[in-house]
């Protein structure tokens, strides 16, 4: 099924960048969580999630992203999002994800901001 969300990641020092491609529902969210925990477990202290290739994140997907955020916060790490469509940005704000994680327009800005803080 081509709608399934694909997740890829790359490590840049202390920071791991994750890219999503496609619909983030429960499976997509779990895919992201798996990759995020793998990165944290192997020493990443900050995560940047670039969602520019995702147009829909449903509320189940967001609830999983919130769990990831809590885990990151427990470890005193950082989580930043970038590449959000206006609708995804709006939904992140409604659910309060924007209060606890930072949101940047571009990957560059997100990387700069978290690199300065880890």
């Amino acid at each position, binding site marked *: *099924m081509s*709608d399934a969300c694909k997740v890829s990641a790359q490590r840049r020092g202390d920071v791991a960048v994750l890219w999503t491609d496609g*619909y983030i*529902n429960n499976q997509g969210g779990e895919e992201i969580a798996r990759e995020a925990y793998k990165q944290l477990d192997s020493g990443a202290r900050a995560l940047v999630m670039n969602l520019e290739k995702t*147009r*829909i*994140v*449903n*509320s*189940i997907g*967001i*609830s*999983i992203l*919130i*769990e990831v955020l*809590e885990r990151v916060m427990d470890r005193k790490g950082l989580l930043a999002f970038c590449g959000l*469509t*206006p*609708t995804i940005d*709006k*939904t992140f704000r*409604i*659910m*309060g*994800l924007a*209060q*606890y994680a930072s949101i940047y327009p571009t990957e560059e800005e997100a990387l700069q901001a978290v690199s300065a803080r880890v």
Partner: protein
Amino acid sequence: MAHRKTAPLTPRHAGSRDISLTIPVAPEMEIVATAQAAALGEYLGMSRDKIDEVRLALVEACINAFEHAQTRDERLHLTFRMGREDEGADWLEIEVLDQGKGFDHLRIEPPTPEQTFQGKRKRGWGLQIIRSLMDSVQISSGDWGTRIVMRKYK
């Protein structure tokens, strides 16, 4: 069930310009449904961002029915209507009807970000998202099932 009503099991007013779509209760079918919403939004000339808002609201309404409704027919009945206000504003209306167990939507407490972050329960945002993204939302529910009618202006 708090709201017992005579069961209006056919779409409200099946006008000849309506588009009806019936999908099975199955994973990812909500995304198939959004293709219809997107095509109609484009037909009306809605912006891509507004179309995304409609699509997400529709996704939430569908997954609610998939997750909670326990539909008797294992199907979800969608009706798409387009119209224009007197002042000229075009709208797209989507009705999502399930023949499930229904629920008392007036007794659903709206969640807060604080509860979501402190507590164990991260869910419960679907209806809230639908209300935030659409311009008007009507819910009726009973033991005949649940109907959500939501409208977005172009």
